[in-house]
């Protein structure tokens, strides 16, 4: 599956021939890292050759992030052997790692929102001009040159605040190139990107590979791993499992190694009877953001809102739920019009909202699992305005159990859970309110493959129980696999309405990008 692209088949041709590899640019063998009694990484092993893109895959909690942080110099391994360009190294700081030519691009780029793009690239090593002071002109010129190389025009003088995640990653890459990094580590760079942005990123990655850099690529998306990477290393439970030539293995084999068991189909959507209309949105408009949005969702139906990132999908969902205002149009739940900009009214009418960004919008990370799960229930649980801890525990325990949330104890802080389990807590939180409609924004973003199918199964089950589901997703296979109907948005308008039988990657992609083609 290539996102909105359909060019995955020729991927194998693009993989670098195996014979070209030279001596490793980076090796890590048997790295151990413990935090108190917790073993985060038992056997971190990786071998990166120059001029290759090397995938590192594993479920969440497999130790990939810890391994990345060791490479980045954030963590120091307790044991193990670490070489860069054949030399043994032991990094004490991030600066040591950088000096050795390693650049890390994290899943969520870490830019300085108040500084300009150019300054973000050169912070700490700005070019100097007269009197030893920073030369902004020179800095701007070098930034332009970098973006020219990457073929991406970004204004070096604008502040980083408000840049799309894709552009933020391009800036991180520009930074890496300007640092002359021989080793580039990308930790789930595509998690928040749309198809076109992914292709742009891959084009850049391939160019760097062809120039001789070693690239370590971490992703949960197998189409990307198989389309882009030359070799694949699998990790499970903090330990190295195996490394394969991409051309000599299959998705099924890799998945089996990752989860240590066979898993069923990735997208277990079960057929359900659809009932009455639950949500009806008519003529919803917010100038400049979305226009004339009409659609309905029926009980037991999963409707996917698809399209490129930035097409206005999330904005529509937020307006429906009453977080953001809209200028005209109406939102009806079960025949009754909802007041705009009033999430409380939406919740009371039976709407649940699972936001895209779990950490910031869906959960209170420092609170316990049970507290989070009971957050939406505070009104119904309260007696004389006070909330009893017992009632809270009972209500949350029911759902946490049904959703199989894996946590040490319901009293543990949510921040200690893996991404997939956090998502389950968010789901539990809303399910406890007995919703009629559940809006889910990017249900499996950043979730590993095992938990992903569990989340899919859960959503499918909920639909089976008669809950109407509006799902926003940038992952085409998820959309095609889960949805009864697909609505495609482009530039704030619905440009495609496809039934399950009509929806293919080509039809969805066409509706999502038609304007871009016709504008040529």
């Amino acid at each position: 599956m290539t996102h909105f692209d359909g060019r995955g088949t020729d991927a194998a041709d693009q993989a670098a021939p195996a014979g070209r590899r030279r001596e490793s640019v980076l090796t890590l063998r048997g790295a151990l890292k413990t935090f108190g009694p917790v073993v985060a990484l038992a056997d971190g092993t990786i071998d990166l050759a120059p001029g290759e893109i090397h995938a590192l895959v594993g479920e969440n909690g497999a130790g990939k992030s810890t391994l990345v942080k060791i490479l980045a110099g954030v963590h120091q391994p307790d044991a193990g052997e670490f070489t860069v360009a054949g030399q043994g190294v032991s990094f004490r700081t991030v600066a040591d790692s950088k000096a050795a030519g390693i650049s890390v691009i994290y899943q969520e780029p870490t830019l300085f929102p108040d500084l300009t793009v150019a300054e973000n690239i050169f912070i700490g090593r700005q070019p100097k001009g007269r009197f030893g002071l920073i030369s902004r002109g020179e800095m701007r010129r070098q930034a332009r040159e970098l973006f020219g190389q990457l073929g991406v025009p970004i204004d070096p003088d604008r502040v980083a605040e408000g840049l799309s995640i894709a552009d933020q990653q391009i800036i991180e890459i520009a930074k890496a190139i300007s640092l002359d990094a021989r080793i580039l580590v990308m930790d789930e760079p595509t998690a928040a990107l749309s198809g076109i942005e992914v292709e742009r990123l891959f084009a850049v990655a391939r160019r760097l590979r062809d120039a001789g850099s070693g690239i370590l690529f971490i992703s949960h998306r197998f189409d990307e791993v198989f389309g882009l990477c030359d070799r694949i290393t699998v990790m499970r439970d903090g330990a190295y499992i195996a490394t394969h030539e991409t051309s000599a293995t299959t998705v099924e084999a890799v998945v089996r190694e990752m989860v240590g068991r066979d898993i069923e189909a990735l997208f277990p959507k079960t057929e359900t009877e659809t009932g009455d209309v639950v949500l009806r949105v008519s003529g919803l408009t917010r100038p400049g953001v979305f226009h004339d949005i009409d659609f309905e969702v029926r009980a037991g139906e999963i409707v996917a809102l698809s399209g490129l990132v930035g097409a206005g999908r999330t904005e529509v969902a937020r307006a429906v739920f009453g977080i953001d205002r809209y200028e005209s149009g109406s939102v009806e739940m079960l025949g009754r019009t909802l007041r705009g900009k009033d999430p409380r009214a939406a919740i009371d009418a039976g709407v649940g909202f699972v936001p895209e960004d779990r950490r910031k919008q869906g959960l209170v990370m420092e609170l316990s699992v049970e507290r989070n799960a009971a957050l939406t229930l505070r009104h119904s649980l309260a007696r004389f305005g006070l909330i009893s801890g017992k009632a809270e525990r009972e209500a949350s325990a029911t759902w946490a159990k049904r959703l199989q949330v894996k946590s040490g104890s319901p009293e543990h802080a949510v921040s200690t859970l893996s991404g997939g389990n956090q998502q389950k807590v968010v789901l539990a939180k809303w399910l406890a309110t007995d919703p009629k409609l559940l809006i889910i924004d990017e249900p499996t973003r950043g979730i590993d493959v095992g938990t992903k199918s569990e989340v899919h199964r859960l959503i499918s089950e909920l639909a089976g129980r008669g809950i109407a589901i509006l799902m926003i997703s940038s992952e085409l296979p998820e959309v095609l696999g889960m949805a009864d109907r697909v609505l495609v948005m482009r530039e704030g308008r619905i440009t495609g309405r496809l039934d399950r039988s009509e929806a293919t990657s080509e039809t969805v992609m066409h509706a999502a990008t038609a304007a871009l083609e016709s504008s040529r």
Partner: protein
Amino acid sequence: MSLDSRHAAPAQPAPHPTSSPLGSFLRLRELPVILALVLLVAVTAAVNPLFLSEQGVKDLLLNATILMILAVGQTLVIITRNIDLSVGSVLGLVAFGTGSVFVAAPGLPIVLVFLIGIAFGAVLGAVNGLLITIAKVPALVITLGTLYIFRGINNAWAGGTQYFAGDRPDAFGNLSVDTVLGFPVITLIAVVVVAIVAVYMLGTRPGRDLYAIGSEPEAAKLFGIPVTRRVLLAFVVNGALAGLAGVLYASRFNSVGATTGSGLELDVVAAAVVGGVAIFGGSGTVVGAAIGALLLTTITSALTALRVDKFWQQAIVGILILAAVVIDRIAGVRAARKLRIAEARNV
């Protein structure tokens, strides 16, 4: 490469808004505070021409000098997403210390006294900085603590003692009386300080690091910026500047004692905020903060010149602070909306 022309199409960024000097002037963060100051002076001078007499201007500048220096120091700290509430107490300690030094060693060169005061302030700033970076307790709490501790030491040290201008050499007091080209000497000192710190913040790597730290502390750490060292530096410089302000205070005002500088910290923070320094760090300039300090002190004088009741003066300062925050917020929201629309079109 698989990036064909269709895919490459969308990346053209929105046309860059006017890069002309006028355009960048209009987008200056300090613009509102500058306009407010110009308007205030113009209106007051129209009603009361004496306001802009030679003596009037001199008084305005003298009144603003000490707050200006403190606001510049505070800005360094605020930009790193910290705050220093102890500056009033630091100023008090150094001012009383300056009085004591002149009494204990009347012949000491004035330059040496300045250096002693600055060093004393830097040490107190370092105490703050070390507590914050080592204990990893929010600066608000630490400096609230040292505000009382430093003041307590000042009380114990001074007791009922006060030193008066007569205890100090005439040359020292004259720094606040003599003028060069119409500017009082201590104001010139303040202007030089503002200029040096402004260039440092704008044109040196450590200066830019401070902005980066306040803008996104986590990113700063991941990027390998020596966060601890830089934050410590900001507190030490702020302390040193508060020390300088303390010495100047002893020159400018008749008496120094146990309560000198009490309550000044809030004026200082207010000056920085009014001058466009974001309270959560990452943006704002020392020049803006200095103008903010000038605006706050000028308002007080202007309202007196306009015979406005003392009570209203405080309320108006409060309104000004809120206005600064609101203007900042509106500008931020508008910029975000523009970018959002531009991006939705561009993807």
